[in-house]
């Protein structure tokens, strides 16, 4: 990547820059003639005026093309038409040049961003310790943004705008040198003064940015140390300090304003002075007969066009310095020493490459910054047919050795050979596919469990997506522009999954494999529950939807046959009010999809209000809402705001409570009809959340329930076409796409107040699904569970297990585990240990253990201390008095 901005521009856009310059040059003659024409027109008018006076207009001859005489009117219109055409041509040039350079600038910006991002992928891992992502991210996102615009302008702007300035100046000079001199008179002043003011403004602006940055730091500090501020009574000092900083910023900003407006004032005054000279000197010259009136008018018109390009040029020179420095700063940040060669990322693996044989390390040393020695001459040769444990304490090098073995860190000195070939120069397509590496902090993508598992199989696009003709053309276009901008030509929408590497024939087998591995790491139950909590699209998974309906029927049978179970679920019944469902659910008798019928929107939904009116429920619901409000105010007004009960139990948030308190007092003893529209609307929002069995407020009696059932019928019967998509009605024979699998199986509400109800129903559902052989299908649905940003919706142990399963997806030759099970409970840990032992029974497992006692089942133990391997052998050989290993075991 070129170190200087202009180097970068020339390397990647030389051809376009030249095209732009040629375009600019070609446009000048047209521009010149568009200044010249007004002179011809005015002089023509003057001549005509003379001819009109002496009555000889009829015979007035004029020529545009020699030998084609025109009369006075035609001549005038002809000149005007040419003027119009010239104006259009000038505008056309401007338009084309702007679009052309805009496109080029965007392409260059795209290239710059891409190259910076690729740099990140090429940073050696230790570099990330010194880098703050808070600084790096804005560099690629916002800081390079203005560069795109500038790159478009880099060469053409001074030439083109310079031309736009010089052409009218030349024209003026040609008309009359004195006028020309007048036009030029003040430029030296401006050239001298304005940039100086601007430079001062830029300096101030930079200082302003720095001061504001330190102000932000200061606020952060106050927040972090707030306890000490109060504990030491230093708030007065803090305020004085903050005030002082604000004062500095104020001063800077005030100076900037003054200078900015001074520059503006100077610029405007000078620009206004020039026409003064033109009228004065030009007028005088016309009197003297040295300049004709046409020329003067044309000169004044041309002079008007001087201000635009002049301003653009000034802007350009101001921006140039800024952008140049910014580019050098940004690129400098992305230029660490020992950047990984791009070939390491790009090279494809040799055909059929496998890592087999011996792992041989000789004098492997790893240092950082020359000072800290993590590894200090590690020597060992171990056959990959064995399962190897690495033990040691925190400073033994046990943490770093696995990284070196996986070639994630390159040793500072020494060699690592696998099966006779040097590991260090192998491309990532070998190390990243044949070696698996996992730590306790496996990173999760913010997508589904499935995507996270398959991630280790996505190295290259392998199969083009199915596209129609138009889609193919679009893909070609996208690819063309990607290549033109130096971006990746690969299609993200292609199928990247390497089924061969996973040792399976296709998607179905891969899914089987994924489920098997999740079982191996002990995540099968979790996935099953994720499946139950997940939703499916019945159109795409018709088989599963149908199977779930069968499970629903089977569960119903089980519930009906056992009265003690029947009490656990209250099924949905179109003719009955469900005591365990909210009033809203009872009214809608379905699951809202999208926002129209969502809980919060119900009281303002026009259709819902219309139905309530029709069923005569509105006023009763408002009365009920008032009772709810009254109860909430009574119950919760004694609690401090923000108390967790508000969120857990209250219908009204602590912020809204005072408002409702006032509302309750205001509407005391009032009929709903007498309340203000606003109060009515507020009260109406409350009763929809009422669940009879849960809240036990006794507000909904049997008679009212019957009326809700009436309204339910009305709601379904009169639902307009455009709202059909906003709700999925409960129907015993249809799969409800808006509900979870579990809710679809239950087809009802869990009854409140049944001891251990949830657990018992969970068992029952599991039982039914197992009988119907549906567990695997539910688990398949569980693979689509969205794990959240960075896996935030998973527990840390789930993330660890998933990370291990992901490694196994790609059938690695060597699996390196860096204390990945350290924070799992004992049972999960031994399950994973046994699973991996079984998977790698032929060898290839290297495990840095967080506890030495776990090493018993390995074939060989490497004991590390102070960056060296000091003992190795089988557990029983090593576990003898006098060895370091023995001491380690004793300490645990």
């Amino acid at each position, binding site marked *: 990547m070129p170190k200087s901005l202009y180097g970068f521009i020339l390397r990647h856009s030389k051809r376009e820059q030249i095209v732009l310059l040629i375009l600019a040059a070609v446009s000048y003659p047209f521009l010149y003639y568009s200044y010249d024409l007004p002179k011809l027109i005015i002089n023509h008018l003057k001549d005509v005026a003379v001819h009109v006076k002496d009555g000889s207009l009829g015979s007035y001859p004029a020529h545009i093309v020699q030998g084609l005489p025109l009369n006075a009117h035609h001549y005038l219109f002809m000149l005007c038409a040419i003027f119009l055409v010239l104006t259009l041509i000038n505008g056309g040039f401007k338009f084309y040049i702007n679009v052309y350079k805009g496109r080029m600038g965007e392409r260059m910006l795209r290239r710059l961003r891409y190259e910076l991002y690729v740099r990140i992928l090429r940073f050696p891992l230790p570099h990330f310790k010194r880098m703050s992502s808070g600084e790096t991210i804005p560099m690629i996102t916002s800081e390079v943004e203005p560069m795109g615009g500038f790159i478009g302008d880099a060469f053409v702007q001074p030439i083109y705008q310079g031309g736009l300035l010089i052409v009218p100046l030349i024209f003026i000079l040609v008309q009359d040198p004195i006028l020309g001199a007048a036009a030029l008179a003040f430029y030296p002043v401006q050239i001298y003064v304005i940039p100086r003011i601007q430079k001062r403004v830029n300096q101030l602006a930079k200082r302003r940015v720095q001061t504001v940055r330190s102000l932000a730091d200061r606020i952060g500090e106050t927040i972090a140390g707030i306890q000490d501020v109060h504990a030491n009574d230093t708030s007065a000092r803090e305020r004085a300090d903050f005030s002082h900083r604000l004062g500095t910023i104020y001063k800077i900003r005030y100076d900037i304003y003054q200078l900015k407006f001074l520059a503006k004032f100077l610029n405007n005054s000078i620009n206004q002075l020039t026409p003064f000279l033109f009228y004065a000197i030009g007028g005088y010259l016309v009197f003297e007969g040295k300049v004709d009136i046409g020329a003067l008018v044309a000169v004044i018109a041309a002079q008007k066009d001087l201000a635009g390009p002049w301003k653009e040029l000034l802007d350009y020179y101001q921006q140039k310095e800024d952008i140049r420095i910014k580019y050098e700063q940004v690129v400098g940040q992305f230029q660490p020493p020992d950047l990984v060669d791009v070939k390491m990322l790009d090279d494809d693996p040799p055909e059929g490459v496998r890592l087999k044989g011996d792992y041989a390390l000789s004098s492997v040393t790893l240092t950082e910054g020359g000072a800290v020695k993590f590894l200090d001459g590690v020597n060992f040769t171990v056959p990959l047919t064995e399962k190897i444990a690495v033990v040691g304490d925190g400073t033994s090098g046990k943490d770093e050795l696995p990284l070196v073995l996986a070639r994630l860190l390159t040793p500072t000195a020494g060699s690592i050979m696998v099966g006779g070939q040097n590991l260090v120069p192998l491309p990532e397509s070998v190390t990243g596919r044949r070696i698996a590496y996992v730590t306790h902090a496996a990173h999760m993508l913010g997508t589904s469990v499935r995507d996270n598992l398959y991630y280790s199989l996505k190295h290259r696009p392998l199969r083009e997506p199915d596209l129609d003709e138009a889609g193919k053309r679009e893909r070609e276009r996208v690819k063309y522009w990607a290549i033109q901008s130096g971006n990746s030509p690969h299609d993200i929408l292609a199928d990247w999954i390497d089924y061969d590497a996973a040792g399976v024939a296709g998607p179905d087998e891969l899914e089987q494999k994924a489920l098997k591995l999740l079982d191996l790491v002990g995540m099968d139950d979790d996935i099953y529950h994720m499946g139950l909590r997940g939703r499916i699209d019945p159109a795409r998974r018709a088989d599963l939807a149908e199977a779930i309906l069968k499970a629903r029927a089977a569960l119903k049978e089980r519930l009906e046959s056992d009265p003690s179970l029947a009490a656990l679920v209250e099924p949905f019944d179109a003719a009955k009010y469900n005591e365990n469902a909210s009033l809203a659910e009872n009214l809608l008798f379905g699951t809202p999809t999208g926002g129209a019928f969502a809980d919060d929107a119900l009281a303002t939904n026009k259709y819902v209000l219309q139905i309530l009116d029709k069923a005569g429920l509105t006023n009763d619901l408002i009365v009920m809402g008032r009772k709810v409000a009254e109860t909430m105010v009574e119950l*919760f007004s004694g609690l401090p705001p923000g108390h967790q009960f508000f969120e857990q139990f209250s219908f009204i948030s602590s912020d809204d409570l005072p408002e409702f308190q006032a509302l309750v007092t205001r509407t005391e003893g009032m009929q709903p009809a007498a309340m203000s529209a606003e109060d009515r609307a507020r009260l109406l929002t409350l009763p929809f959340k009422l669940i009879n069995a849960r809240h*036990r*407020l006794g507000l909904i009696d049997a008679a009212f329930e019957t009326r809700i059932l009436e309204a339910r019928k009305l709601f379904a019967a009169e639902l307009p076409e455009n709202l059909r998509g906003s709700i999925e009605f409960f129907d015993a024979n249809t799969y409800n796409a808006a509900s979870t699998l579990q809710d679809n199986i239950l087809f009802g509400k869990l009854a409140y*107040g049944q*001891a251990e109800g949830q657990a018992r129903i969970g068992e029952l559902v599991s039982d039914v699904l197992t009988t119907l052989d549906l567990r695997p299908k539910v688990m398949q649905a569980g693979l689509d569970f969205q794990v959240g940003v960075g896996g935030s919706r998973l527990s840390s142990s789930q993330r660890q297990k998933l990370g291990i399963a992901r490694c196994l997806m790609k059938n690695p030759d060597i699996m390196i585990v860096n204390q990945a099970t350290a924070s799992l409970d004992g049972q999960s840990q031994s399950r994973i240990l046994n699973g991996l032992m079984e998977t790698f029974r032929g060898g290839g497992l290297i495990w840095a253990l967080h506890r030495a006692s776990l090493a018993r089942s390995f074939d060989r133990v490497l004991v590390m201390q102070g960056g060296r391997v000091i003992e190795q052998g089988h557990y029983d050989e090593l576990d003898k008095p006098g060895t370091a290993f023995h001491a380690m075991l004793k300490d645990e």
Partner: protein
Amino acid sequence: MSINEEVDALRRIPLFSNLEPSKLKLLAFTSERLTYAKGQAIFRQGDMGDAAYIVLEGQADVVIGTADNQRKVATIGKHSIIGEIAVLCDVPRTATVVAVDKLVALKISKDLFLRMVKEFPQMAVEIMRELARRLDRTNQQLAALSKQS
């Protein structure tokens, strides 16, 4: 089964008899009302305690001992409070409580319970009284036992 009935029931319990009705209502509203079938355990010895229970209907047996040596130490009835020891002093449940027949109880979360005790000294005194009564009963039982042997 409205909340007002629960408030009535709570008021008859000495522990809560001096609380304002609105506090009792909050207690009832934020508590879960649970139904247990015959033989179902409300909690088991050794579990960590996260709630106290107030029996609204039915009776329960208090059982202590190991899996093979179980001994019923008491039967508790309507309007008694159970499980408050584990909530008060962060120890595992000291006994298993099993529903004798159908039983309805109000489950008061630890957080709410401690809050109530802190806010209403009267409630703390009542708890002390109850605990002292139980201690006295245990002493008498011990005395009876030592006489037997």
